[in-house]
């Protein structure tokens, strides 16, 4: 689980490119959705679902499985794509994102989508729920990990810091938080709207083990998860430096693509760019 070979990294990078293509196509087909934060989270989601997490898609409710909460629930396209390729459900379902009666709701729903461990979408809630899951593991002497992914805009929610206090208080070393630090929220730059820096100092002050990584370098992401799982006596937060809209040049660092669907031509251009980048791997 912790070890990885250059071949692993290559396979994960190809898988990640596939998730990027899926995100663009899904949001295009749906006519709405959130491509920017899905693309910035792609490497982390890929690493989790195709390498790090102890999961069995054949047995999605296994009590001993690792848990994942996409607290920034609007970025579900990349999450759904990962679940589909791990065969929690048919990849054809990806075409139904956000449609009436689809198993892929606009935000994750644990009762509808196979593989989704927790409903999400209202920002700021995931870390508290992750604390509860981690406490349950300890209560029942189970060794699963709980992973919670947040956005950097999301951590403006006060509840995140209530949970940060609780996780450190209870020394939940079976809890791993991730912050997708893409620097952008819907109306602009995070640090213009409500400054969240200095991130590492804040989390350290709350009693967390802080691991920083390049969120678009698969090796760096895998090493970060390795460090997080190895830590004892405190929860770990991975601060992943990312680019919103990563992999699609016209979406990168542009808050307009937080929650907007590409048109036909834009979709074609995005797929071309993602393919080109993949050929260079």
């Amino acid at each position, binding site marked *: 689980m912790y070890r990885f070979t250059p071949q692993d990294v290559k396979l994960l990078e190809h898988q990640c490119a596939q998730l990027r293509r899926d995100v663009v196509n899904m949001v295009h087909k749906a006519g709405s959705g959130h491509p920017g934060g899905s693309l910035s989270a792609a490497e982390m989601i890929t690493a989790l679902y195709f390498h790090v997490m102890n999961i069995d898609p054949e047995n999605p409710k296994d009590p001993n499985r690792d848990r994942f909460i996409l607290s920034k629930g609007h970025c579900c396209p990349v999450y759904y794509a990962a679940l589909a390729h791990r065969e929690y459900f048919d990849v054809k379902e990806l075409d139904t994102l956000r449609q009436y009666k689809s198993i892929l709701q606009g935000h994750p729903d644990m009762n509808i989508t196979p593989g989704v461990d927790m*409903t999400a*979408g209202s920002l700021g809630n995931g870390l*508290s*729920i992750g604390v*509860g899951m981690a406490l349950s593991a300890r209560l029942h002497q189970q060794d699963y990990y709980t992973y919670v992914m947040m956005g950097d805009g999301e951590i403006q929610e006060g509840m995140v810091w209530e949970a940060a206090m609780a996780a450190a208080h209870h020394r939940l070393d079976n809890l791993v938080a991730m912050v997708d630090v893409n620097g952008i929220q819907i109306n602009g730059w995070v640090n213009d709207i409500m400054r969240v820096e200095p991130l590492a100092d804040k989390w350290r002050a709350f009693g967390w083990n802080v691991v920083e990584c390049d969120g678009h370098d698969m090796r760096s992401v895998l090493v970060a998860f390795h460090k997080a799982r190895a830590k004892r006596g405190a929860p770990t937060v991975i601060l992943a430096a990312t680019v919103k809209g990563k992999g699609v040049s016209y979406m990168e660092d542009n808050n307009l693509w937080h929650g907007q669907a590409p048109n036909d031509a834009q979709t074609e251009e995005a797929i071309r760019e993602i393919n080109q980048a993949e050929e260079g791997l």
Partner: protein
Amino acid sequence: MGTLATRMAFGKRLMELGAENPDFVVCSADTKACGIEHFGEKYPGREFTFGIAEQDLMGGAVGLASCGNKVFVATFAVFATMRACEQVRTFICHTGLDVTVVGTHTGLQVGCDGATHAAVEDVGIMRSLPNMTIIQPSDSISAYSLADAALAFHGPLYVRLHRNPVPDIHTPDFRFEIGKVYTLRDYGTDCAIIGSGILCAKAVQAADQLNAEGIHVRVLEVPTLKPLNKAPILQAARECGAVVTVEDHNIYNGLGSAVAEVLAEEEPTPMKRIGIQDRFGESTNDVEDLYREHHMTVQDIVQAVKAQMARKAK
């Protein structure tokens, strides 16, 4: 007067139930709500405190419940239903997880603590949430038995409890059943008094007094406010032709509103809602001061019955 407030009777029973039922846990947020903040002393590892942080409290409970634990969350109703309202709505009600939210210090009966701590609107808020079941005892005996019913229940549940001791109106053999409507008095069909919660004692007193005066009423207790068991309410309205509701909650969106909705749609009947007059609570050493102000005394119930009987005669 019962010796225990409903909140303490409920907590006492839950403490007892912990022994034979190893599969539930308790979450609290540093309040003296119902006595279960000592649960962890008796059952180590099964109580989780989240400090003074109600949103995190509710989120933590959700995480525990999602891993298969039955969870009781207890704090003051104002915080459970408002500070953490969205967590209850989206992560307990929408997910349907097995969390019992225990809200204490409800109605004007909070007394000295005043407006900030007196939940006058909690039922209205919880009643608006899909999937939520709402129950409320009327005395220490029913609160004690209610704990068993809550433990056996699966899914989102709101338990409404009260701060101070009230007179016991039930006998020790009383068994709380979710959904059941109880007939507390059945003197006749001049009017139906429908109560929920601790003011059922006043409803019974009013019925006894009216009976002595030659007016014969039926008194129903509706401990389950949602889903509402409509049949006995409609039957009482049909047979009595006049209804008075009684509760220690705002007249908006509580029992009175629930009964009015059902009667308006299915059995239009003259009725009057006795309850808090759409105002906040305030400090007092004697809650009867507030009940007088809000026209929630035994005499107010008696007068309301007579007024509704006069309306049906027309």
